[in-house]
């Protein structure tokens, strides 16, 4: 989960990382009660990058200008995202700008400290200046000092920048982060340092063990379009909005393999759903069969999906138990007016591929609702693609 700048800076302040006096602005009229002296900078609070170039950051000298600028920013989407709030912050004269980050590196399986003496928007244009230090063992401040020297810092900056890196690392561990980044870290003519912008990404799996972050995540989920039962189901992804096939499987690798096969066969999957195991964000994980039932329901509600391919391999429930879930699902929907005139296939069409030692009972069960059970994966993909073409032609 990505935090907004003002949330990241609240954490920075708690950790003792220097940040400018600032105030959260929920609506333009809040600026009448601004406690920071002008000039101030107003910043759009969005998670996407490039807000400066897009016009989401404005300097203002007085209340009238500030309210007008705030109105503009509130109505300015940045890469499609409208800000919920703005941040009003004191202006800072930085002589130089550094880049600092702590990030988890999968290849070395350790947190890595990153730093560049050329921060701000320049950091991406000069990757050769980006230095890194792997935190091999338990953190100790020498790792931070090592980074500052690699960055070419001298004198008092070695200690002051190291202190900030140490606090970033503490925050990284305390809050289970994937990333904490300060860009830029402003350096004044007197070599004082200030975190001017910050980015924090919390590891999604760790959210549930931090009550304060769990509250933030819940608020964010409530604001977001929450019609999808993702937390209950595991994970789903929309692949291609114009596609007409839904894929439901157990296990991410298997779902991806099925997606590859269907796409290679010339069809377009719309949505893929992995019901393999529930997320640990959810304290009461649903049983496999419940996730399967919910998953079928979810794909059924998607109007553009003409065929659902169910591919389940080696699950704990038996093939017969899975067949029963599918049969129940179809029978529940048979009360509704059929969308297609022929009854040979329920709508949307279902192709079920199961791998298990004993399939005959499951096959018999599925026969009662005219759903074919296919044993071979390539064959199941072929049937799915064929049925999708037939169903698409019917429309």
């Amino acid at each position, binding site marked *: 989960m990505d935090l907004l700048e003002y949330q990241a800076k609240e954490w920075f302040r708690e950790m003792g990382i220097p940040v400018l006096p600032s105030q959260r602005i929920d609506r333009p009229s809040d600026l009448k009660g601004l406690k920071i002296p002008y000039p101030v900078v107003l910043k759009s609070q969005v998670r996407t990058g490039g807000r400066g170039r897009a016009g989401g950051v404005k300097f203002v000298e007085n209340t009238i200008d500030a309210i007008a600028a705030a109105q503009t920013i509130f109505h300015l989407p940045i890469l499609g995202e409208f800000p919920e709030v703005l941040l009003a912050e004191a202006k800072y004269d930085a002589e130089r700008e550094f880049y600092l*980050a702590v990030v988890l*590196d999968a290849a070395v399986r350790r947190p890595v400290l990153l730093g560049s003496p050329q921060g701000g928007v320049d950091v991406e244009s000069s990757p050769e200046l980006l230095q890194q230090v792997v935190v*091999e063992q338990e953190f100790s401040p020498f790792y931070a000092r090592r980074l500052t020297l690699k960055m070419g810092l001298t004198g008092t900056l070695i200690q002051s920048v190291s202190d900030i890196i140490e606090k970033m690392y503490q925050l990284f561990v305390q809050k289970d982060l994937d990333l904490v980044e300060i860009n830029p870290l402003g350096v004044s003519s007197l070599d004082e340092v200030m975190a001017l912008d910050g980015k924090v990404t919390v590891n999604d799996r760790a959210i*549930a063990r931090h009550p304060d972050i769990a509250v933030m995540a819940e608020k964010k989920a409530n604001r977001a379009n929450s019609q999808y039962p993702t937390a209950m189901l595991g994970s789903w992804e929309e692949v291609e909005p114009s596609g007409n096939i839904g894929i439901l499987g157990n296990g991410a690798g298997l779902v*991806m393999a099925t997606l*590859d096969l269907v796409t*290679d066969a010339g069809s377009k999957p719309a949505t893929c759903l992995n019901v393999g195991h529930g*997320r*640990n964000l959810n304290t009461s994980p649903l049983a496999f069969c419940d996730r399967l039932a919910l998953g079928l329901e979810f794909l059924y509600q998607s109007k553009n999906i003409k065929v659902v391919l169910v591919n389940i391999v080696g699950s704990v429930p038996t093939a017969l138990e899975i067949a029963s879930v599918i049969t129940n699902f179809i029978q529940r929907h048979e009360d509704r007016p059929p969308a297609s005139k022929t009854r040979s296939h329920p709508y949307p069409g279902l192709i079920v591929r199961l791998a298990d030692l004993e399939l005959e009972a499951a096959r018999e069960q599925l026969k009662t609702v005219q759903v074919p059970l296919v044993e071979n*994966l390539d064959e199941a993909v072929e049937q799915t693609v064929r049925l999708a073409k037939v169903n698409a032609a019917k429309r």
Partner: protein
Amino acid sequence: MKLTPESKVLIQGLYELSSSTHAVRMKAYGTNVVAGINPGHGGQTLGDIPVFDLVEQALAEVGPVDTTIIFVPPYQALDAALEAIAAGIKQIIIISAGMPPLDMVHLLRIAEATETLIVGPNSPGIIVPAKILLGTHASEFYTPGEVGIVSRSSTLTYEIALQLTTAGLGQSIGVSIGSDTIIGSSFLQWLQILDEDETTQAIVLIGEPGGNSEEAAARYIAEAIDKPVIAYITGRQAPAGKHWGHTGNLAAVVGRGANVGTAQSKLAAFKEAKVAIAQRPSEIPELVKKALKKG
């Protein structure tokens, strides 16, 4: 790695979700499950598996064990592994899914210092067909033979085992290293183990988007592996960044190029290493047969 049928095996989190089902299946497969751990249930038995409150209590009773298999909820997995290390267990398989990556960083620092092998997390473990089942592999799809499978997936691994079995090709081992960002044992370690293993004549490597372990494996195969390797990479058609719950690609990639982590990057690496690449699971058996004929 000790993988013989007489290896003594412990199960931590015996009553979690489906773990008792898996414990019974392991036992039925011939795995020597000597004890289970579940705090608060000490003194009970599951089938004929005695249950203890603490790992050290179990070891006092049944003697040293070779491998422990961890099924506890994800936030307790670090503690369970540390308890096993403290008791001197050298092989740990973590089945639990959803461990926070910083817990793994913590665990790996200690595991490396104590030379403890960690497999997983979020892994179905290891199977040596007809010999030992250490984890949750669907054993019915495997049959003993000469093909070693090393993978990051669970059900996709069973799918490949099934395709091989159907084509008359048995397997020497099936191992999944797990698909999380931070995992214990690597492709490299297992390639080395399988290269030295006398039963294994060909290796099937199953990769997926995220991280750079397939790229590293490809380079290693070109340099150090003598046995034929067949690679299959899933997720070629998956949109970038969509991984259905596998989190291998969440970590930053610094100085390794923007393309790292994609299926395309992995396929390019295997191509460069002149490793045979299967386009689909059903192509794997014929490629294995071809490779075995050559050798």
